[in-house]
């Protein structure tokens, strides 16, 4: 049962938050401490989780589930630190979403995957709706909810087709066209969640309307879980044909994401498209991993990318939260008035653009290289091209930040500077010593 200790810690956190909420005046400090402690405890407890394969009929613990749990907790930790202690429901929702992701990482069969998927999604809709008051947040949440509902329905449809074909809920090698279609529908659900083109229309709205720290959480922890979801489907049905289309889907996603981000004025929307572009690269990576016979190398590359991205994305959204800067125009000339935050943000931008010596460079390199190695030359080239296009807005923001002169009133930065800086230090460390992450995540360095 020790394999489920992290999930138990999170579940205890959910119950604890709800219990504290019963008090007439919930102690804000205790609530915040509880949320942080639950996520941190889960992170520490993963260390002790043995990699032993099947734990029960519905849960397993393999190298991937352990590695991904690290990613999920890493992505969730910043939001845990940000969360407002006065809102017990929000805290419980957040921990519930993390628990859902964590269960998704450990799910051993298709129904469990579905339950975990819904478990992580439902609180996420509410997180988006509640994180920022106002009509826009509600509208985005409703949009997000409908998209998610459709995705869930697709999965159920796919699952029933799959079951009708194989009469089993476990992995199968022999699929008829019906089963193939079923797996493809389930994969579409995963692509929905990752934000693949054209199933990503909900994503920019949701990321823009949510509070920045929630967007950071969605783009890191949620995306990591969704990528693992896609990989699990590839494993469950090794002969499924959808995997062959992943590199092309990824390439189109990466390209459209980068192009759409070019014209964005609002930072959160820009980074939403940037996250779509990165999702495209990840899908190329999953496709390459599947095409190359699901090697450890491929897993490490994806894991590293997601790990580095957890720092980059959380760092950029934390910068938005910390400084209160909402548009690109407001970025102008802020380098002089807030040098530390701006310098950290610049490092994060360089990392997102994939410029050495940062973690973002190594991440892109490893991932695209897997594609080249799997003879997926064109997706790799298009992935590289999208990275080049993205350079235009990352560099543009750097230019605005440092080379322009500030207009308008000076800003009063809020809390969270240390988080932005920590993320920047993280990407530099990952660039200078990439083995840190591969060692930490329990996946052997290739």
């Amino acid at each position: 049962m020790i394999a489920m200790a992290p999930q138990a810690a999170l579940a205890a956190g959910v119950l604890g938050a709800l219990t504290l909420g019963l008090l007439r005046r919930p102690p804000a400090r205790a609530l915040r401490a509880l949320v942080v402690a639950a996520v941190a405890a889960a992170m520490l407890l993963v260390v002790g989780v043995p990699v032993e394969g099947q734990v029960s009929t519905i849960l397993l613990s393999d190298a991937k589930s352990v590695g991904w749990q690290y990613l999920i907790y890493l992505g969730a930790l910043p939001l845990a630190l940000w969360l407002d202690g006065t809102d017990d429901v929000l805290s419980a929702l957040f921990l519930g979403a993390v628990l859902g992701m964590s269960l998704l990482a450990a799910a051993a069969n298709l129904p469990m995957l579905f339950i975990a998927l819904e478990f992580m999604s439902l609180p996420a809709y509410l997180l988006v709706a509640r994180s920022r008051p106002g009509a826009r947040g509600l509208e985005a949440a409703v949009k997000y909810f409908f998209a998610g509902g459709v995705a869930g329905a697709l999965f159920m449809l796919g699952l029933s087709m799959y079951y009708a074909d194989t009469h089993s809920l476990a992995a199968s090698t022999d699929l008829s066209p019906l089963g193939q279609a079923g797996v493809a529908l389930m994969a579409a659900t995963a692509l929905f969640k990752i934000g693949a083109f054209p199933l990503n229309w909900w994503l920019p709205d949701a990321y823009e309307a949510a509070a920045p720290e929630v967007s950071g959480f969605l783009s890191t922890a949620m995306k990591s879980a969704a990528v693992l979801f896609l990989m699990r489907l590839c494993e469950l049905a090794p002969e499924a044909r959808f995997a062959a289309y992943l590199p092309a889907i990824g390439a189109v996603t990466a390209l459209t994401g980068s192009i759409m981000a070019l014209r964005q004025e609002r930072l959160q929307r820009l980074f939403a498209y940037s996250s779509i572009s990165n999702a495209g690269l990840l899908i190329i990576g999953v496709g390459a991993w599947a095409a190359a016979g699901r090697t450890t190398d491929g897993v490490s590359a994806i894991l590293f990318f997601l790990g580095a991205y957890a720092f980059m994305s959380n760092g950029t959204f934390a910068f938005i939260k910390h400084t209160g800067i909402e548009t690109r125009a407001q970025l102008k000339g802020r380098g002089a008035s807030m040098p530390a935050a701006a310098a950290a943000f610049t490092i994060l931008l360089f990392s997102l653009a994939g410029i050495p010596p940062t973690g973002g460079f190594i991440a892109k390199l490893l991932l695209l290289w897997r594609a080249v190695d799997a003879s997926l030359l064109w997706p790799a080239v298009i992935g590289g091209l999208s990275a080049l296009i993205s350079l235009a807005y990352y560099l543009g923001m750097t230019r605005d930040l440092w080379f322009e002169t500030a207009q308008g009133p000076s800003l009063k930065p809020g809390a969270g500077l240390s988080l932005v800086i920590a993320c920047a230090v993280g990407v530099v460390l990952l660039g200078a010593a990439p083995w840190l992450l591969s060692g930490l995540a329990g996946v052997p360095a290739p």
Partner: protein
Amino acid sequence: MSMPLTTLWVVPLIGAGVCALLGVRAKYAALVFSMFFVGLVAGLGVMQHSFAALSVVNEIGPVWAYGISYRLSADSLSIGLIGLTAFLNLICVIASWELEVSAGYWACFLALASALTGVFLARDLFFFYVFWEATLIPMFFIIGLWGSSNRLHAAVKFFLFTFSGSVFMLLAILALVSAHHRATGVWTWDLAVLDATTLGASAPLVFWGLVLGFAVKIPMVPLHTWLPDAHTEAPAAGSVMLAGVMLKMGVYGLLRIALPLFPNLAYESFPILGGLAAFSTIYGALCAMAQTDLKRMIAYSSVAHLGFCLLGVLSRTSQGLAGGTLQLINHGLTTGALFLMVGFMYERSHKRGLADFGDLASRAPYLAFFFGFSTLASIGLPGLNGFVGEFMALSGALATLPILAFAGVLGVTLAAAYALPAFQAVFWAPAGPGSVSDKVTDLDFRERAILWTLSGLMLWIGLAPLPWLAWFEPALRGLVR
């Protein structure tokens, strides 16, 4: 006797960190570290020259995933270019001494020197690429923060262009490493091992990918369009580093990677690449002729000069290689001096158009002397350094494909046609109505000291090139066809 090569790139990097932290007094730290850096390189050069008879110093670190390993090596070519880097970096620090700039300025220059040193030292292609790209970041800030009016545009254009070229280089490197793995089952990024890889059908793709990456940097016409903007908008010292060292990275890449790996392909493509190089010499000169901005004219002359380097190097004859390589140093000295002087004039008058000056020779005789001296060196007057390099490079081309040598000679003639009238207009012609010549006071002691040093070296190479040629010869021997 050995000195860890790592110190060579770490010392300037530490210097950059110290400068960034010091704030107001950063320039003193910059000076100390730049001098220390020059001393280190000189020490290594002397050691290698006298004790080990021009041997190669290696330093090999542990292997990380995919055979990536920290692997440095210094032969005479590397040390020569690192020497140029260290020397010009010191010159830049001294030349910028009176500028009112923040600590970041000095930190950027030292960081740039560090990354450039890494490029010239790395023998593992992964680290080579990392250092290669790392040079862009400080230069981006040097142009963007301390450049002139159009700096924003120039900084982004510079970064985008050269980064795009490098991506092709990276893809080529990846394909090469993968091909080696497929053939032998061993992951390695070690240049010495990859030399022996046989690529088969994908060889041209890899070769052209590498060449594209290097050609943007050199820059070879038609990939040169980032250069005039970047060089013109950068601060004077930034232009010196840009033209003096960063352009050399491209030729260095050809010498170090593309030519040893693909000797035959390089030879077969000589009509195309050599043709573009020869075209660069003419096109660069014609563009320079059309400029009204002194700095922009010098920027275009760089395109032409690098064309000579390429022509020599690509001919793969012993004289061409030697001349092309020597021309790398020459161009660093001459163009560096010219950019600095335009910078000195700009500091005093905030103008740099040809029409903004006139009759400067009587007002600023030292400036006129050094400018004339450097101009003559730049157009290849016998007895000065430019002549030696261009002559040898052209004779290399002559031995390979005579028509290109003729085109190159046309380029030499055109150089005189843009440089001398420009000199005449600025220094001898009577000052026009809008002239700012009276604002231009003559060079002070610090500025003269810099230019005496640079001019002395130009003269030395021009009169006695043999020790310089002998220095580079061991590194180039293996490349001769």
